[in-house]
């Protein structure tokens, strides 16, 4: 046996790597499906894409030549083939709205949306999980009921309603936070990562960082609210189930402190199933960012998406949806790896004394 293949064998035997490869494979298949779905949706459009692109005053010859350039006269399968070929070359076509390549637009607008969604994700996990622990620890008593009502309330309104209410309360009536945008006009920050909070820090401008941060608070909270409720409920439900397990009775029989049992012994086994759903909540946030960005005039991909949809800008629509789907797939792979990392059953699938 060659040493190289032995090493390869060894890496493949690591459960985490195997899982990663498996997830990448599935995601690739799903991505092909997504591209087909997006393509089908785009071709459902009533009317001639070339005519829409050129406007009603274009000459028929112009339309015909654009149709040929867009491969619109070829069979649908061939059209899909050209679409995939372009996508793999990183070419998403030209946007009718900005008159620039869609890729350029996405690179410009995606970081703002990601910054918002990540901030909301951090708030969701940072508040949702502790609330869930609290509710489970006081199962059936008033903290449990309070968390339950809070969770049900937060998931009962779309995030644009929360955005409007938060804006009214904390930007207008109590002017604690700015009303809209990502940063005040007075700051000129060089774009490095596209994340305003990080770029201001890289620029070493703490005042600008503070400004960017305070712009981020209300949109992120509005976006995270329903996620907080769901994370809390789910954590609570899983923890209440874990409390019934023999190993918790054993921990109690050894006199460990109830708060320590809740935080350490019950929480970790319960977190593992919760994480999957938290990944899904992240997906919901990518969608709800469309609503929150509209309210707070947040210059992100979602706001761009709405603008291009209202203009029936096909290339831009397809590109936006594709990028959001890819982002979501990446997040899900990360969540799966995190679960595998937290769950020793996946990490160590071998027995010690077999």
């Amino acid at each position, binding site marked *: 046996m060659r040493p190289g293949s032995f090493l390869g064998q060894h890496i493949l035997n690591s459960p985490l790597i195997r899982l990663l490869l498996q997830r990448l494979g599935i995601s690739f298949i*799903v991505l092909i499906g997504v591209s087909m779905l997006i393509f089908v949706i785009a071709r459902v459009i009533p009317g001639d894409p070339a005519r829409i692109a050129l406007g009603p005053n274009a000459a028929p010859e112009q339309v015909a030549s654009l149709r040929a350039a867009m491969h619109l006269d070829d069979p649908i399968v061939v059209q899909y083939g050209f679409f995939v070929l372009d996508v793999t070359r990183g070419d998403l076509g030209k946007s009718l709205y900005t008159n620039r390549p869609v890729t350029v637009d996405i690179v410009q607008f995606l970081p703002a949306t990601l910054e918002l969604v990540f901030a909301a994700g951090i708030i969701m996990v940072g508040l949702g999980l502790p609330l869930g622990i609290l509710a489970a620890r006081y199962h059936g008593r008033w903290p449990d009921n309070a968390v339950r009502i809070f969770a049900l309330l937060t998931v*009962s309104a779309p995030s*644009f309603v929360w955005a409007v209410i938060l804006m009214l309360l904390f930007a207008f009536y109590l002017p604690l936070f700015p009303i809209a945008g990502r940063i005040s006009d007075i700051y000129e920050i060089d774009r490095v990562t596209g994340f305003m909070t990080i770029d201001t820090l890289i620029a070493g401008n703490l005042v600008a960082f503070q400004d960017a941060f305070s712009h981020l608070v209300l949109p992120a909270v509005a976006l995270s609210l329903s996620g907080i409720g769901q994370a809390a409920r789910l954590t609570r439900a899983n923890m209440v189930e874990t409390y019934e397990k023999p190993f918790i009775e054993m921990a109690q029989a050894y006199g460990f402190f109830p708060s320590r049992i809740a935080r350490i012994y019950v929480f970790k086994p319960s977190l593992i199933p919760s994480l999957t759903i938290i990944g899904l909540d992240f997906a919901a946030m990518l969608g709800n960012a469309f609503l929150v960005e509209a309210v707070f005039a947040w210059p992100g991909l979602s706001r761009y998406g709405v603008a291009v949809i209202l203009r029936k800008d096909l290339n831009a629509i397809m590109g936006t949806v594709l990028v959001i789907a890819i982002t979501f797939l990446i997040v899900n792979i990360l969540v799966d790896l995190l679960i595998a990392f937290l769950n020793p059953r996946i990490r160590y699938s071998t027995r010690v004394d077999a």
Partner: protein
Amino acid sequence: MIRTLRIVGQNPLSLLGLILVALVVLAAALAPWISPFPSHNGAVVDFVYANQGPTARNWMGTDLVGRDILSRILYAYQISLFLSLVVLAIAPPVGTLVGLLAGYMGGWVETILMRIVDVFLSIPPLVLAIAMMGVLEPTLTNAMLAVTVMWWPWYARLVYSLARSEREEGYVLAAEVIGASTAHITFREILPNCLPAIITKMTLDMGFVIIIASSLSFLGLGVQPPTPDLGSMVAEGARYLPDSWWLTVFPGLAILVAVFGFNLLGDGLRDLLGVDE
């Protein structure tokens, strides 16, 4: 049914949910008779009373062209509930069928069906509906279509995972041993055991469909003016914050009340039917 209602009645939160849902349904059904200004349902203008805060005449104020907001909310409830009912009349049966087939049949049927479901689930729900509305004309029918297309895979996934665990149960094996047909086992043995979870999800989804539909119209991709819609009312009013707060706050609260009602009711049902979260 009576027993169910009695048990729901014992839990104060579920009872509150039942009351809220009943109020919303009644308000929608009786809108033509109970709304103070039934004609404000359409393209009417009354500039004398335009953009006024809550008064004795208009409890929730008036919009920019003087229409009574309370009346428009009542009519908007009609549209929201109708849309939810249509979506939930189509999406759950379709999803259930797909989930049952995949869960019980296994093999390549399972692989193909569940990969298709995965594709739908890997586009964030609202984004899929937005993309569809992007290429379709913004009408009520198309909004219902888009929401349904985005909704069925969730039922497929739920029923699939239930059916797969039921497949291992003793009673399915017993039915197989006595030679029952696949159709019999799937629809007569497995389906009834999935029903509590499906019904609970449908109750909760009444509220969530309202949220998604109002989100579409908030973005201008749903029902078009002058037809009253809670989402587009909020979108229109948001430009006049904070002075004309009633333009947004009341339609926003109207969504909250209706969805909260369905959530409380669904939550109570979940406990009652013993469905896991």
